[in-house]
């Protein structure tokens, strides 16, 4: 009995913090999304009205929600595979027994991960500058005309994807590296004796053995990339022509620029539902892949 009481004392601070400052707000967000909480309600709570699913209904009929969702999906669908391929490539190179100074390379490749998004976004804004940027200068040497990377609606999102991949690939690289090191060496030994080429070894040993790691990395990266916000906030302010306004950016604008808290909560919940559905779908597909 005494031990029971002690346990609750140990748990109390953390559970109180999580309960009051996370769980309660999450539940409140669901409630809020069913009201028209706005600037008037903020001033006087008596203006608050219950509107049931009206916010959701409204959102699903607004082009700006669909366009924000589309921009986010674009970022996820292109950014995640690209970043996973780069991470896996870097991990495979690092894992080669031929490599010397492995830790130096690992540290260099990983460095962008620990940097602050806002700070390095500022650096990239200069690199991508139309007139004085290094990228356009380098392309100019190859005879390619300057591109307005962050000012052209067609190029703004690809630029942000490029930046995000540069910033994040090191994280998954470390996880892949650990996964690769866990594959028993004698599998490769046996394959080599059977005359399998490097490509065959990769397809028939490395990829299948890395399967669970790959799935986990994919799920974590997808849910991370769905939460796109700071990059467009600093690099493009959601523009040009809203082309980099993500779902979270929409939530931020609805909530903290226009004070439509009811509508903004509905946006947050829709994002949550979409992320949950995508994760569930990925788990399901991987299970079917295993069974086949």
């Amino acid at each position, binding site marked *: 009995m005494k031990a029971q009481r002690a346990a609750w004392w140990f748990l109390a*601070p953390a559970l109180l913090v999580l309960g009051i400052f*996370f769980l309660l707000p999450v539940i*409140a967000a669901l409630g809020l999304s069913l009201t028209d909480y706005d600037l008037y309600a903020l001033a006087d709570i008596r203006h608050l009205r219950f509107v049931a699913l009206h916010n959701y209904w409204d959102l699903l009929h607004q082009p700006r929600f669909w366009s924000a969702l589309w921009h986010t999906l674009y970022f996820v669908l292109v950014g995640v595979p690209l970043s996973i391929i780069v991470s896996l490539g870097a991990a495979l190179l690092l894992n080669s027994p031929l490599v010397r100074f492995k830790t130096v390379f690992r540290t260099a490749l*990983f460095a962008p991960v620990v940097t602050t998004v806002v700070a390095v976004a*500022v650096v990239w804004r200069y690199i991508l500058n139309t007139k*004085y940027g290094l990228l356009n200068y380098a392309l100019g040497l190859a005879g390619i005309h300057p591109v307005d990377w962050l000012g052209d609606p067609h190029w703004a999102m690809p630029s942000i994807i490029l930046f995000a991949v540069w910033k994040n690939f090191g994280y998954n690289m470390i996880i892949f590296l650990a996964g690769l090191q866990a594959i028993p060496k004698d599998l490769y030994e046996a394959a080599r004796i059977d005359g399998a080429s490097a490509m065959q070894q990769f397809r028939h040993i490395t990829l299948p053995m890395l399967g669970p790691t790959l799935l986990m990395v994919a799920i974590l990266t997808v849910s991370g990339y769905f939460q796109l916000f700071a990059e467009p906030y600093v690099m493009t302010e959601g523009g040009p022509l809203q082309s980099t306004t993500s779902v979270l950016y929409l939530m931020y604008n609805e909530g903290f620029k226009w004070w439509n808290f009811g509508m903004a909560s509905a946006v947050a919940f829709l994002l949550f539902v979409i992320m949950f559905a995508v994760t569930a779908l990925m788990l399901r597909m991987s299970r079917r892949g295993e069974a086949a």
Partner: protein
Amino acid sequence: MSPRIAKALIHGLLIGGSLLAVFPLLWMLSVSFMHPGETGSLPPPLLPTHATWRNYENLFLRAGVGRYLFNSFVISASITALSIAFNLMAGYAFAKLRFAGRERLFQALLGMLVIPAQVAMLPLFLMLKYLGWVNSYAAVIVPAMATAFGIFLVRQYARGIPDELLEAARIDGASEARIFGQIVLPLLKPIMVTLAIFTFLTAWNDFMWPLIALTGQEHYTLPLGLASLAREHAQDSELMMAGSVVTVIPVLALFLAMQRYYIEGLLLGSVKG
């Protein structure tokens, strides 16, 4: 392919990749020492013609970056200290103490990992507003004092502590608090260091919630100050780079010094899937 060519190819790719990864950071450092306006020339200068500290002087004397640096340290250090204490206690309780409903509570905790933090932000802001906490250190520190993820990490690690050790101490009449302080804490030191680095870096780099909760410049952290500078002084590349250096150097140094613990933590954390 002969091993010699393969070796050259792999090293070539690694050197190229590492340069791509590190170049923007080195260039940031180099540009921060350039005279105002130097970046407005072609070809883009790689090194300053006459290195100067002027951008740093302007940052600290005019743009008030010293204040942002101070705020960032206060907020990140407080979050780290408090969340370590709370997460260690809770993680240990989940791992080693028996109480009714332990498994179900832990399942609920894991469930919370699925919910994106942004869902809570709007009501949290309203809550803090009614409490009068908006635009205070507390608005950023208090909600971060415990994390489901931190508790989970500690719990996984603490499960390795042998029960006999704790039982022996109990039979000797030691109180639960004393067992935690004198036996458990020293054993949890490695996970403590890992968690501390992780928490500090996350708090330092955090952007969205501080942007919402800290509305006045006097409470801005470095990322917020930098973002607002970037909107006002978009053309002052040299000044902005100096600001980026000030923001990135502390975390980069911490990472380089404690790399081993950081990477261990990253791998521990990724097992949650």
